[in-house]
């Protein structure tokens, strides 16, 4: 048995914050310079009462508009901002979307590598006969984790969700994977408080970065330079491993989509790995870094912009929080 991506759709919340809004609020950086360097002009922000579950629901409705939802027999949701500790957001969504009861549904907690892992799970369920049609959702509201005075992270991250249908196919369209994990980087991208290791603090100590950003242990902390160090070390290796496992080379690929972390980082990786500019996706201008949703959003963008089409061979590489990373090649 074999698996294939049938369709990909995204949903972005309505509220837009652009660089000029942030420049007015913080008055300490140049919005044009930031756009040029990071490749981000706008990001979408979820409402106070709008959750990852809500965004995932709307992305799912979008992809199911032209698909018989009764065919879905597995629902997987990648999120690090679930609606509840329990129950599982995917179970809540099964009812809300109106999927059958005799299906599996669960959440998994991964960030920027999450979409690649989701494809691996979907492929595994289909190829072992456990499912014929998998709905893979990614949804994050990272902006809720960020301290209002943390300009660096407010610049980078945006909220969003995606929905992908993966179905049984006559020939394989999701090829070999390469995975990696290193918990040694856990403290470099973390929300320390709120779990049971460190409960949410009522009056947390405020911390300051060298750039005058403010955060606390209740909020998201990202050590950007360390994440950059990790990425330039791990990504070239995993891309190379994946290419070798698939017995191919970059020339034989039609397109390459990396996790859209920020333009500076992925452009550096592109040059380091020697991927031609014309077959490399770099567009987070209107979304920012939407974590596990950046790769499926990029697939949707590239299809809409006719940069890829049905039959295109595309390398996907996700990397980040954990540290966790994964790479695969798909045929659309």
């Amino acid at each position, binding site marked *: 048995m074999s698996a294939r991506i049938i369709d990909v759709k995204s949903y972005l919340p309505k509220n837009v914050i652009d660089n000029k809004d942030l420049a007015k609020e913080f008055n300490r950086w140049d919005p044009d310079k930031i756009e040029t360097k990071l490749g981000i002009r706008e990001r979408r922000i979820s409402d106070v009462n709008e959750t990852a579950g809500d965004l995932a629901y709307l992305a799912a409705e979008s992809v199911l508009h032209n698909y018989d939802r009764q065919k879905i027999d597995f629902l997987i949701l990648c999120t690090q901002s679930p609606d509840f500790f329990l129950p599982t957001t995917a179970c809540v969504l099964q009812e809300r979307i109106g999927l059958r009861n005799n299906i599996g549904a669960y959440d998994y907690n991964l960030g920027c590598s999450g979409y690649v892992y989701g494809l691996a799970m979907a492929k595994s369920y289909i190829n072992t006969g456990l499912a014929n049609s998998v709905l893979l959702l990614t949804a994050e509201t990272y902006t809720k984790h960020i301290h209002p005075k943390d300009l660096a992270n407010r610049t980078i991250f945006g909220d969003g969700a995606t929905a992908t249908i993966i179905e049984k196919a006559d020939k394989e369209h999701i090829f070999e994977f390469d995975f990696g994990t290193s918990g040694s980087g856990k403290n470099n991208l973390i929300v320390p408080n709120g779990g049971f290791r460190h409960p949410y603090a009522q009056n947390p100590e405020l911390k300051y970065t060298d*750039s005058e950003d403010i955060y606390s242990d209740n909020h998201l902390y990202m050590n*950007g*330079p360390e994440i*950059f160090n990790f990425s330039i070390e791990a990504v070239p290796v995993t891309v190379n491993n994946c290419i070798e496992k698939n017995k191919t080379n970059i020339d034989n690929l039609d397109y390459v989509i990396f996790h859209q972390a920020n333009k500076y980082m992925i452009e550096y990786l592109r040059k380091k790995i020697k991927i031609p500019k014309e077959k490399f996706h770099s567009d987070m201008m209107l979304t920012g870094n939407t974590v596990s949703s950046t790769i499926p959003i990029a697939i949707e963008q590239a299809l809409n912009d006719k940069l890829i089409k049905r039959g295109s061979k595309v390398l996907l590489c996700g990397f980040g929080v954990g540290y966790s990373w994964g790479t695969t090649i798909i045929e659309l």
Partner: protein
Amino acid sequence: MNKNEFLNEIAIYCEFEDSSMTLETILKTIDGYDSLSVMSMIAFIDENFGLKFSAKQFQNLTDFNSLIDLIGKEKFDND
């Protein structure tokens, strides 16, 4: 490259716009110096010297001379 060429090249690469910068300029006093600047310096050093340093090592730096010490003086040509 020698130390002054290094200073010029890293300034262009990292878009440090202070023309009065010297090897003794304290990094944290450079206008607009932030985590993006550190990311750019990591990229520059990776590209030109094939070396990687932790964010903590960058945090402990004072001026460009301390960065040269970290990279290794022997990797630079004499002026």
